[in-house]
């Protein structure tokens, strides 16, 4: 099978952009966390792509490492969410936002 590597990276870019839009436009922190997951996933895909381009296992190794990063981030993020939920009652980032930008 052949896939032009550019097309693969277009997919990465699309996913990353969708994630960014979600991160910037959603108000609910849970959705922002999901958007961030999509972005990290785009990064993971990029390494798989590059790895398969060079026929090396290194890409997949990095993928596994990214997996552990994502797991740790999600764990921390959700823990924070639980704590925030207790403080505020819901997850609206605007209610969080009492600090001036």
């Amino acid at each position, binding site marked *: *099978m*052949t*896939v*032009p*590597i*550019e*097309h*693969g990276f277009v*997919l990465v*870019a*699309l*996913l990353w*952009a*969708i*994630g*960014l*839009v*979600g991160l*910037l*436009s*959603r108000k609910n922190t*849970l*959705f922002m*966390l*999901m*958007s961030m*997951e*999509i972005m990290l*996933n785009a990064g*993971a*895909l990029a390494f*798989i792509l590059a*790895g*398969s*381009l*060079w*026929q*090396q296992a290194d*890409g*997949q*190794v990095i*993928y*596994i*490492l990214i*997996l*552990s990063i*994502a*797991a*740790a*981030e*999600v*764990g*921390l993020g959700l*823990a*924070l*969410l*639980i704590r925030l939920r*207790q403080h*505020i009652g819901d997850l*609206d980032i605007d209610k969080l936002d009492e600090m001036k930008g």
Partner: protein
Amino acid sequence: MNIESGQLLFYVSGSIAVLASLFVVTNKNAVHALLYLVVSLLALAMCFYLLGAPFAAALQIIVYAGAIMVLFVFAVMIFNINQTDIDREQQWLTWQSWVGPSLLAMILLGEIVFVLLSQQNWATNPSSVTQIELVDARAVGSLLFGPYLLAVEIASFLLLAGLVGGYHLAKELPKKTTTQGGSQ
């Protein structure tokens, strides 16, 4: 495997991933969004497989779509997101709130696509088409526990950090609090 069909499959699953991600971002209901996220991850797993990375594909399904998503589901259960949350989110999801970020992302996307499709991209590997060959779990494993051994150790510390941090943040506050934090 037929070359044409493999390529076709890649595009199809890629599109599914993109569509599902779009639904994640635009959905009002957290549980629905999560389901779409799982679909997106699964579609990517398919892509991994087609790119000759079956081990990564398996991990994507087991760890990502499985374990990490379960975390999310638990969180959603704890939050018990109700109709008022959904209604409020609905108010926010007017088109105005999308214009700015979407425009921004479109510009970025345009730039990246332009870069990708323009000439003289690859300096060392002029053939920009890849002949996919399988890189199996054995190769990954021997690399991971060979030269990358230290990375595995660090990853374990990373997970430890996630664990300790998550534990500390999520556990109950000590009982003897007199002034309630947050006050709302």
